[in-house]
């Protein structure tokens, strides 16, 4: 079963690496944020698999921490970075 866990983690890491394309192509700031969200969720999944593969229950706590705090970055993004009125640059290629 351990080999299956390692294999599944590998597949998940590949999907993350593929998702990185959206990070570099954008176009809006929210797209880049979504890629870090994908990193977070996949990180949770990989931690769950690692805890099963290594038989280490403490890694579940890492997954739980990532799950509980996944909202902080998004909230900071919408609260600080994307707050305020709409600017033309929000909709175009550049996401400053």
């Amino acid at each position, binding site marked *: *079963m351990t080999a*299956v*866990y390692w294999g*599944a983690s590998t*597949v*998940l890491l590949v*999907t*993350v690496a*593929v*998702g990185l*394309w*959206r990070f570099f192509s954008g176009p*809006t700031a*929210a*797209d880049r*944020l*979504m*890629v870090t*969200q*994908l990193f977070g*969720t*996949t990180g*949770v*999944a990989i931690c*769950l*698999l690692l805890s*099963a593969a290594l*038989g280490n*229950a403490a890694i*579940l*706590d890492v*997954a*739980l921490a990532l*799950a*509980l705090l*996944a*909202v902080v970055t*998004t*909230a900071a*993004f*919408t609260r600080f970075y*994307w707050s305020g009125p*709409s600017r033309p640059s*929000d*909709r175009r290629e550049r996401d400053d």
Partner: protein
Amino acid sequence: MIDWISALFLVFAALFFIGGSVGLLRFPDVYSRLHALTKADNIGLGFIVLALLIQARSWDWALKLLLVWIFVMAASATNAYLIARTALRKDIPVWTPPEQE
């Protein structure tokens, strides 16, 4: 037997994660990409939790797995709402299908 069911669930999970990534790359606007992303969160992670749940070594292990799933769902719903609302407020265009000739 249990190992095979677990492996099957893990395959489903991987399919949903792959689907989430492909959707993130291929869908035309922020809102539909958000949909693809949250599918990976909820169902993909759900299948992983199921696969590990039937293998769980103790009750606290199982409880933590369930907690992780519940909070990932709550967080991804909150995140999706925050992103979509802010994007709408920022007038990020919603994709409409091209006109049929």
